[in-house]
């Protein structure tokens, strides 16, 4: 039963039937759960097939959406909405179905595509796992949940998808639940996100109270048109919903669950905890942007900060600082993810909707790629260890694909020009400056500096320097020097040695029998098997290429054009004063890449609308220069720091060799090389030990002990409160009152026992005496 007559005519089959996209993996989940174990490939084939099918439909829908936008000729592009009755109350019916527009298309494609790659990757990575089928069931259910959320036409469906993601996150983080640490990380993730979800529930209730509907389109339209009772209520709705986003998207101060969530298998980290699930919060803000924009008065005249931007900005800096002191490669990436999510939030907080959504898009590719690369390293080179200091180093020679993908993605993450991250991140920073949010502009460029710094450090530790631990083992085997008969040998050789896995048991989750590994690509025969490296190649390519969908630097605004109807608010020139406005308007005249009609339409809309978001600024190299210079500075500082700190320890020669090579490659001056010891001394003693170390240590300490401590403490004290209440109030007071009455009865029973003499006369006396007393009472009452 269709909920209401919705305009879907001539939208095209794929757009009309986009509801199939989540439904396919959802059904596949049940198929895997019920029949997966009996299938030849343990259900993974169903998972992959369903994701491919979803991807095909999503791609079809994307194609038709592009067609729809292109044929609209500058008019407002309506989203395609279809809903079926899901539940009703008080005669009001609520639907389930689809709400598909540019924003939804972007994330749909993203999720379907990355899920497919990650599932393929996983068939190798978790091969032989005891709960292989469960793994694929959960990860398929995750994709279904995310797709449900993305397609949600109303808040209830959004909550449905949101919570399904939370569930699968719990299941997958705790995939190896035999170890207490893993199950605790899973619980922590679920609880922390759940704390945020209070905001989601409350915010939804407030929205229903304000707008009388839960349909996203209805809410957005009313909010944009100013049709809400009191601004106060809308503000509270926005704050409540944003709390949910803080929890889900790992924003400060609820970000602590995300690094812990790395206890899950690496493909899970790459899919859920970097590229897709954690952007759900950002997606929610983008989806309901009019609510947040109006409710929190973003871009209002004279506003210098707002909740979203502040939280995002703090997250950027704090997480980046934390990433600097991690030894676990996945934790570096996790903090990096948190930091990048902070960028997205900050972008939304300063009105840079398009840039933020585009950053969701590009970030997903390069961050997923980084995680998969980390997985590839641990799978092949480091004996399932993620410790950069103990088990890695010098891997670039043996793992060309992994190394290449990592480097490209790192460049994208760091925002080096012409890699994808540059186009999105720089635009966020630029927009902040443009919209007069100077503080956040500074936060943005400092964040960029820190990003490249920690990534350089990590890259150095993983791929350069002396191989250590597991990596040394791995590298050593190549040279034929040692240990032909152990596990590392098996990693490389294709002959079967499946009988001896004794050495694995010290690494926790991989106690199960190691399966026979797949074959690597012939041109990188020491790298991971092809099922792992193929996704890396694809994602690495996209880490470069995806940026060109919306590259103002080279004059491409295609992405913006496709998604701008999803903002829910008209675009308008921000009324900035002084040089800024002049500069912008002059750029306006120069840059003709946006059609004159579009500008006219937007300005016209801006005149009539009450609220509007500023149009993305026009790109200028001059504006980007400070950021780029800081990126360069960050790279250099971190590089020398890394060389000095980590390179020195192994022997005297290798760091020297390493340093010369790097400096030749990047054309840096020899002076630094000569003065290496000075710098070493300076950085290590002054900056590292004097400033950076204590600061980040302090931040980490603060994080682990205060914020995390608050989280843990809240849990612990809640439990203690529970115990106290139970012991003292329930058992003593409430139950005590009940038992006391019993006891009184009992005691008085003892007291009255002599009365209970068994003598008839006494009974008679009591009976009549009581009757008399009763009669007297009655008389007195009636007098």
């Amino acid at each position, binding site marked *: 039963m269709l909920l209401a007559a919705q305009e879907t005519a001539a939208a095209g089959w794929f757009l009309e039937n986009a509801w199939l996209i989540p439904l396919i993996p959802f059904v596949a989940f049940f198929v895997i759960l019920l029949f997966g174990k009996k299938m030849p490939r343990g259900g993974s084939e169903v998972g992959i097939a369903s994701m491919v099918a979803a991807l095909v439909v999503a791609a079809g829908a994307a194609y038709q959406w592009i067609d729809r936008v292109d044929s609209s000729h500058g008019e407002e592009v309506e989203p395609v909405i279809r809903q079926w009755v899901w539940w009703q109350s008080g005669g009001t019916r609520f639907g389930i179905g689809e709400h598909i527009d540019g924003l939804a298309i972007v994330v749909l494609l993203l999720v379907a595509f990355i899920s497919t790659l990650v599932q393929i990757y996983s068939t190798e990575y978790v091969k032989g796992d005891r709960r292989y089928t469960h793994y694929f069931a959960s990860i398929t259910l995750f994709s279904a949940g995310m797709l449900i959320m993305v397609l949600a036409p109303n808040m209830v469906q959004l909550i449905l998808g949101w919570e399904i993601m939370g569930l699968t996150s719990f299941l997958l983080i705790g995939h190896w639940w035999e170890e207490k640490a893993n199950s605790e990380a899973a619980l922590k993730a679920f609880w922390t996100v759940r704390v945020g979800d209070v905001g989601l529930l409350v915010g939804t209730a407030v929205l229903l109270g304000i707008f009388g509907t839960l349909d996203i389109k209805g809410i957005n339209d009313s909010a944009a048109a100013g049709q809400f009772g009191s601004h106060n209520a809308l503000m509270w709705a926005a704050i409540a919903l944003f709390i949910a986003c803080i929890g889900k998207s790992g924003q400060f101060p609820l970000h602590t669950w995300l690094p812990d969530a790395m206890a899950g298998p690496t493909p899970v980290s790459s899919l859920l905890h970097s590229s897709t699930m954690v952007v759900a919060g950002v997606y929610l803000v983008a989806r309901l942007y009019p609510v947040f924009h109006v409710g929190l008065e973003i871009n209002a005249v004279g506003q210098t900060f707002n909740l979203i931007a502040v939280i995002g900005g703090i997250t950027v800096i704090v997480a980046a600082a934390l990433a600097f002191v991690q030894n676990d490669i996945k934790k570096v990436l996790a903090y990096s993810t948190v930091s990048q999510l902070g960028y997205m939030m900050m972008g939304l907080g300063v009105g840079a909707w398009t840039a933020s959504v585009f950053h969701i898009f590009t970030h997903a590719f390069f961050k997923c790629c980084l995680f998969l690369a980390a997985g590839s390293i641990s799978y092949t080179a480091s004996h399932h260890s993620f410790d950069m200091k103990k088990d890695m180093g010098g891997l670039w020679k043996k793992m060309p694909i992994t190394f290449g993908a990592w480097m490209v993605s790192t460049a994208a993450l760091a925002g080096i020009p012409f890699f994808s991250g540059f186009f999105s991140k720089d635009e966020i920073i630029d927009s902040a400056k443009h919209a007069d949010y100077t503080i956040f502009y500074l936060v943005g460029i400092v964040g960029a500096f820190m990003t490249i710094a920690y990534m350089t450090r990590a890259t150095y530790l993983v791929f350069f320097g002396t191989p250590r631990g597991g990596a040394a083992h791995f590298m050593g085997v190549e040279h034929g020097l040692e240990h032909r008969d152990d596990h590392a040998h098996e990693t490389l050789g294709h002959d079967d040695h499946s009988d001896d896995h004794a050495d694995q048991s010290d690494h926790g989750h991989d106690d199960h029998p190691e399966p026979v590994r797949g074959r690597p690509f012939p041109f990188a025969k020491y790298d991971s098997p092809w099922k792992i490296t193929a996704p890396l190649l694809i994602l690495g390519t996209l880490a470069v290429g995806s940026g060109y969908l919306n590259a103002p630097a080279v004059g491409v605004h295609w992405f913006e054009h496709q998604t701008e109807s999803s903002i829910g608010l008209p675009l308008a020139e921000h009324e900035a004063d002084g040089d800024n406005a002049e500069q912008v308007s002059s750029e306006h005249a120069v840059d003709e890449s946006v059609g004159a009609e579009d500008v006219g339409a937007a300005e016209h809309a801006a005149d009539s609308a009450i609220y509007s978001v500023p149009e993305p600024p026009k790109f200028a190299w001059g504006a980007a220069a400070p950021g780029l210079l800081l990126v360069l500075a960050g790279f250099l500082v971190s590089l020398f720091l890394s060389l000095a700190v980590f390179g020195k320890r192994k022997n005297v020669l290798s760091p020297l060799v390493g340093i010369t090579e790097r400096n030749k490659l990047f054309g840096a001056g020899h002076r630094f090389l000569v003065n290496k010891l000075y710098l070493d001394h300076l950085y290590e003693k002054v900056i590292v030990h004097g400033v950076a170390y204590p600061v980040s240590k302090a931040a980490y300490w603060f994080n682990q002990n205060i914020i995390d401590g608050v989280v843990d403490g809240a849990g612990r004290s809640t439990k203690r409160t529970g115990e106290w209440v139970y012991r003292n109030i329930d058992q003593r007071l409430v139950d005590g009152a009940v038992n006391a009455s019993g006891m009184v009865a009992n005691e008085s029973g003892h007291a009255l026992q002599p009365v209970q003499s068994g*003598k008839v*006369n006494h009974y008679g*006396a009591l009976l*009549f*005496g009581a*009757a*008399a*007393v009763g*009669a*007297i009472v009655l*008389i007195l009452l009636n007098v």
Partner: protein
Amino acid sequence: MNALLLAADVNVAQNIGFYIIAAIMLYAAFSVVSTKNVVHAALWLVVVLGGVAAQYILAAAEFVAVSQVMVYIGAVMVLFLFGIMLTRASIGADTDVNNKDWKLGIPVGLVFFGVLVYTVVDAFEGTVIVEPSAAQIASSTTLISDGYLGDYLIPLIALSFVLLAAAVGAIVLARKD
């Protein structure tokens, strides 16, 4: 006798009759609960029961009065005397016919009496009984029988079962096996 008593002008006589009988009854009742001789107690009880029957007649309830005489004085009292005999109570005075703490009964009884007097006086003070006419009295027996075989038929049958059960029960209890 009824007609004589019910005449309006002999109301005084009726009152006097009532008080005399009442006085006798009360004395007899005190004796029942205070005498030390069981047989005497039974005999005083006969006096009380007879007095009650007399009061019934004063209250224009002859059928009840007759039943009272027949059932109580005729049957129940005989039962009591048999009971006394069979339990070999001494015909003479008993030494400890009362409980150790028999005095408990005095306050209870007095309180009860006080409550009842208060209630009765409070509720019926000044209520004068309109004497029923002769015809009414004559028809009262008819009305009673109508009541028994009409509205109260089921309770009557139930009561007969109770009596039967009591008879059987009494036999069972008293049998010497």
